[in-house]
């Protein structure tokens, strides 16, 4: 099988495996016994054509090209009889064949899924009706809860009275606090100044977790001159 007279219709292939499957199907060769030299040649021809058309050849295609060339050379190498006995049954193409079979399996499943979705499309459905959100009133609250909440606020605003009450401060609330404080402070702030509610250890922990989350979300950046020095927060907007 020579590439002479073989014209490649320049199709965009999703990846090297898609291209290889195409070549195997086009040449009608047995996937378990791929004529590696011919297929490699056609594969490389395709990459060359892509380059001629100034198409970006993704690195995955080049990696596969190298793999094909390696398999080809291993198949050409004359192997000593002894070695051959040891390696009996190990075909240099085996790994590639397994990958192709796995890929082909999912390709076939995807075609079946496509058929299913087309069948399903014939059952036309309707958009859900919009209903206003319903908030049932909170239950189990009493005046005491309200007084406690107010007292907690009052205490947090007078540090000398600060009675440590176990308070739940969520990380989400704290993230909100930090962003608001940063906005009110021209975008920069010391971490210590984010402890504004109770000054409790649990608030400190919530604030620290909130800080980490905000960094992860790339909403803020931090800096610290040296270990244990104050942490400065900066809004990243």
């Amino acid at each position, binding site marked *: 099988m020579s590439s002479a007279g073989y014209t490649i219709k320049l199709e965009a292939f999703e990846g090297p495996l898609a291209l290889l499957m195409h070549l195997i199907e086009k040449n009608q060769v047995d996937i378990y016994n791929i004529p590696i030299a011919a297929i490699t040649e056609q594969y490389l021809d395709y990459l060359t054509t892509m380059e001629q058309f100034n198409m970006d050849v993704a690195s995955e295609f080049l990696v596969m090209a190298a793999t094909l060339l390696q398999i080809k050379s291993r198949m050409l190498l004359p192997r000593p009889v002894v070695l051959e006995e040891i390696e009996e049954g190990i075909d240099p193409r085996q790994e590639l064949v397994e990958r192709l079979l796995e890929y082909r399996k999912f390709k076939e499943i995807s075609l079946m899924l496509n058929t299913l979705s087309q069948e399903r499309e014939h059952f036309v459905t309707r958009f859900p009706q919009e209903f206003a959100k319903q*908030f049932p009133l909170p239950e189990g609250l009493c005046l005491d809860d309200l007084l406690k909440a*107010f007292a907690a606020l009052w205490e947090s605003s007078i540090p000398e009275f600060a009675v440590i009450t176990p308070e739940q401060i969520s990380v989400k609330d704290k993230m909100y606090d930090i962003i608001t404080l940063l906005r009110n402070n021209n975008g920069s702030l010391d971490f210590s100044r984010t402890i504004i509610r109770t000054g409790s250890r649990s608030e400190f922990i919530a604030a620290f977790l909130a800080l980490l989350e905000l960094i992860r979300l790339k909403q803020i950046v931090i800096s610290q001159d040296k270990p244990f020095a104050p942490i400065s927060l900066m809004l990243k907007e």
Partner: protein
Amino acid sequence: MFNRHLCGAIEALLFASGQPLLPERIAGILDIHNDHVQTLINDMISSMADEKRGLTIVEVAGGYQLCTKPLLFPIVSKLADIQDNRLSTAALETLAIVAFKQPVTRQEIESIRGVNADRVIATLLDRLLIKEMGRKEAVGRPILYGTTNEFLQCFGLKSLDDLPTIASLLPTSPAG
């Protein structure tokens, strides 16, 4: 009725459209006369009156629309998402400020809590625990908030008079 299958087609069209469909549009798609559409739809409406059916066809905006029977609204509305009814610490704190200092502006709430209150005020409004009570005669005429009847119900209060005054809440000695 010899055109029974056209009723099925009309039902499917009205269902898929969602919007009211003009009789001309239905007639065009089914390649029948406008008058014929009217007759078929009248026939459908009478058979949909059966209690075994939950839908009906209404004439709206010059067209026909498939919808649930009004009688069934109490059942259908049960599909609405029921939201979580717990209050966060932030919501409870804010509610406490509104309760004891009403009428109060967002700015006043923020100056006590030290943080932005937009989101928590929106939540409390959504949940009908606070309401707008007009505007303060100050720069920017900020909105004033106060508590609702639902708030009283929720905390088991008969009226706002049941709330202690702020003065009585303030600690008189460091022992509180």
